[in-house]
C-alpha cells in the first residue's frame, strides 16, 4: 500500500522542494464537499485530521481481503490479519525509532495511553507525599489521570507555571523538581497555544533527578520529527486520528525496561500466557498491555497514514504548515479587536485567538456558516484557560492539505463576524 518515495517526491513537491498543497488536497475526498453551500475550509485538524484515500483504501483492503481475529487462528485469514497488524506495529516502531516492537503498545488513543501509564506505572511508583509534575498548559487527558492517581496515593499534583509567551522555562522546571518528584508528564506541543516545549532539554533535566518523563504527543505526531531514542523520553503517547488515520487507534511507546516491570492494566484475552482458576501468567511485551481483540483495522490505517506522511515528506509538510501559520498571523492582525493567544517562538501551526466583544462560540457558528471549520471553547484545557483568564478561545489549526486560500477564507469569515457583531 505504500507509495514508492522516489516517485512520490515528484508528485507532492515542486522543483524547489515545496509542498504542492493542491496535489495533497486531492488525496482527501472529504475536502471536496461543501458546508452550508460553501466550499469546506477545514481548520480543525488539531481536533481531528481528515484521512487520505491511501488510508481509507488500506482499511478497506484489510476489511475486504484479510480480516479475522489476530494471534489466534491457524487459518489463512487469521494469519494474514496477524501479519498486517504486526506489520503496522513495525511501521510505527520505525517511524518513531523505537528500539523494538515490544515497546509499541496499541491503545485507543492518547487518553488511554496516559491512563495506562498512570494506572500501571504510577501506582507502583507514586506513594504518599510524592509529587507528579505537569505543566499549566496540559490537555485534560494529561491532567485527570494524574489527579486521580495522586488522590488515590496521597500524592501531590504540581503544575508548572508558564512564561508570558506560553512556554515552559527549563530553569523553572528545574526548580520544581525535588526529591519527592516521581513522574513528569508534559505535552510535546500545546493543543491551545501551539507551543513546542523544549522537551529534549526538559527530559535531560528530569533524568538528572532520576525522574521518568511521559510526553503527550497528540499534537506533535503529524508535524514534528519524533525519535524516541533521541528524545530520551520514557513514555510517548499519541493518537491516530490526529495524523490522518482513523479514530479509536493510538500508541503508547514505553521503554522496555519500564514496561517489563509494570503490572498489567486491563486484563482478559490475548494478554495472558496461561490462565487457571488459581491464577494467571502474563504474555510477553507488548501483548501484556493489549487485552482483548485490538483495533486491527485502525492499526493498519495508522501504518498507512505514516506511509502517507513519509511519502509526502514530513519536513515539507511542517515547512508548509509554518508558512500557512505565518500567513494567517499576518492576515488576522487586520481584524479589529483580534488578539493572538500563545506567541512562543517556533510554535506549531496552531493559532488561538479571541475577538473583542464576541464569544468564541459565536465566532465558530458564523465561520461554520461560511464553510470554515475551527475549534472553539476551552480545548479540554480548563486549567490553562483559568491561567490565561479566558473562558474560551477560537482556534485554527493547520495540516498538510491546507492552502493559502484556506487562510484567506478564514480572514474573510472573520471579517463577516465583525460585520454581524459590529
Amino acid at each position, binding site marked *: 500500500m505504500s507509495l514508492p518515495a522516489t516517485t512520490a517526491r515528484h508528485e507532492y513537491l515542486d522543483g524547489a522542494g515545496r509542498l504542492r498543497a493542491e496535489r495533497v488536497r486531492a488525496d482527501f475526498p472529504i475536502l471536496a464537499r461543501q458546508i452550508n453551500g460553501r466550499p469546506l475550509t477545514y481548520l480543525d485538524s488539531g481536533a481531528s485530521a481528515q484521512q487520505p484515500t491511501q488510508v481509507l483504501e488500506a482499511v478497506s483492503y484489510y476489511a475486504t481481503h484479510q480480516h479475522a481475529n489476530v494471534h489466534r487462528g491457524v487459518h489463512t485469514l487469521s494469519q494474514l490479519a496477524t501479519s498486517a497488524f504486526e506489520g503496522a506495529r513495525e511501521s510505527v516502531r520505525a517511524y518513531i525509532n523505537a528500539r523494538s516492537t515490544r515497546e509499541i503498545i496499541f491503545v485507543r488513543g492518547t487518553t488511554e495511553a496516559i491512563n495506562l501509564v498512570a494506572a500501571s506505572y504510577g501506582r507502583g511508583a507514586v506513594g504518599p507525599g510524592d509529587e507528579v509534575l505537569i505543566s499549566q498548559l496540559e490537555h485534560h487527558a494529561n491532567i485527570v489521570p494524574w489527579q486521580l492517581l495522586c488522590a488515590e496515593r496521597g500524592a501531590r499534583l504540581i503544575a508548572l507555571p508558564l512564561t508570558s509567551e506560553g512556554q515552559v522555562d527549563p530553569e523553572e522546571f528545574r526548580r520544581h523538581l525535588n526529591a519527592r518528584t516521581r513522574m513528569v508528564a508534559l505535552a510535546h506541543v500545546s493543543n491551545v497555544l501551539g507551543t513546542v516545549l523544549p522537551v529534549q532539554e526538559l527530559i535531560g533535566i528530569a533524568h538528572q533527578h532520576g525522574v521518568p518523563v511521559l510526553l503527550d504527543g497528540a499534537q506533535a505526531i503529524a508535524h514534528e520529527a519524533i525519535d524516541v531514542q533521541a528524545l530520551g523520553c520514557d513514555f510517548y503517547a499519541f493518537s491516530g486520528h490526529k495524523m490522518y488515520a482513523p479514530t479509536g487507534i493510538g500508541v503508547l511507546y514505553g521503554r522496555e525496561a519500564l514496561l517489563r516491570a509494570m503490572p498489567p492494566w486491563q486484563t482478559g484475552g490475548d494478554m495472558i500466557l496461561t490462565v487457571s482458576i488459581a491464577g494467571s501468567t502474563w504474555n510477553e511485551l507488548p501483548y501484556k498491555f493489549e487485552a482483548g481483540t485490538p483495533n486491527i483495522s485502525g492499526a493498519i490505517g495508522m501504518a498507512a497514514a505514516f506511509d502517507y506522511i513519509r511519502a509526502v515528506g514530513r519536513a515539507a509538510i511542517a515547512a508548509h504548515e509554518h508558512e500557512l501559520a505565518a500567513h494567517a498571523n499576518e492576515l488576522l492582525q487586520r481584524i479589529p479587536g483580534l488578539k493572538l493567544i500563545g506567541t512562543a517562538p517556533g510554535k506549531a501551526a496552531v493559532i488561538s485567538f479571541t475577538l473583542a466583544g464576541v464569544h468564541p*462560540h459565536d465566532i465558530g*457558528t458564523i465561520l461554520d456558516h461560511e464553510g470554515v471549520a475551527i475549534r472553539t471553547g476551552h480545548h479540554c484545557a480548563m486549567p490553562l484557560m483559568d491561567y490565561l483568564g479566558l473562558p474560551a478561545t477560537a482556534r485554527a489549526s493547520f495540516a498538510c492539505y491546507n492552502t493559502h486560500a484556506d487562510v484567506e477564507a478564514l480572514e474573510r469569515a472573520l471579517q463577516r463576524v465583525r460585520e454581524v457583531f459590529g
Partner: protein
Amino acid sequence: MELSDLYRQVILDHNKSPRNFGRLVPADAEADGYNPLCGDRLELRFDGSGCAISVASASLMSEAVAGHTRAEIESLSQQVIQMLTQTSFTPKRDLGKLMALAGVHEFPARVKCASLCWHTLLAALAQAHATVSTE
C-alpha cells in the same frame, strides 16, 4: 438556515446590553449553570460570561419572568425549552420577545447555549422549593 435567523437584532441587542445584569444579594434562590462545551458560566439573576446566544437568552429571560409567580415561570421555562428543542412547536401562549430565540433550533450546536439559563432557572426554583418544603 440563515445566520440572521440566529443572530436576530433582539439577540444582538441583548448581548450588547444585557438587562438585569449583576449579582442579587441576598437572593431568594440561586443556582449555577455551566455548559462544559463552550465554557459559559451563568448565574441567576444573572451574572457571568457567555456567548451572544446565552447572554441574550438570560437577558430576555430576566425581563420575561419579572413579576410572575413560580408556577407561571416554570410553565414559561418549559415552553421556551420546548421551542428550542422541538421541531414543530406551537407556543401555548404568546412568548413575546422570547420568540427571537426560535431560530436557535436550526443550529443544533447552539441549543444548549440558549437553554442553559432556563435549566438553571428551573434548578434554582426547585432548590428554593426544596428549602421551603423542609421548613
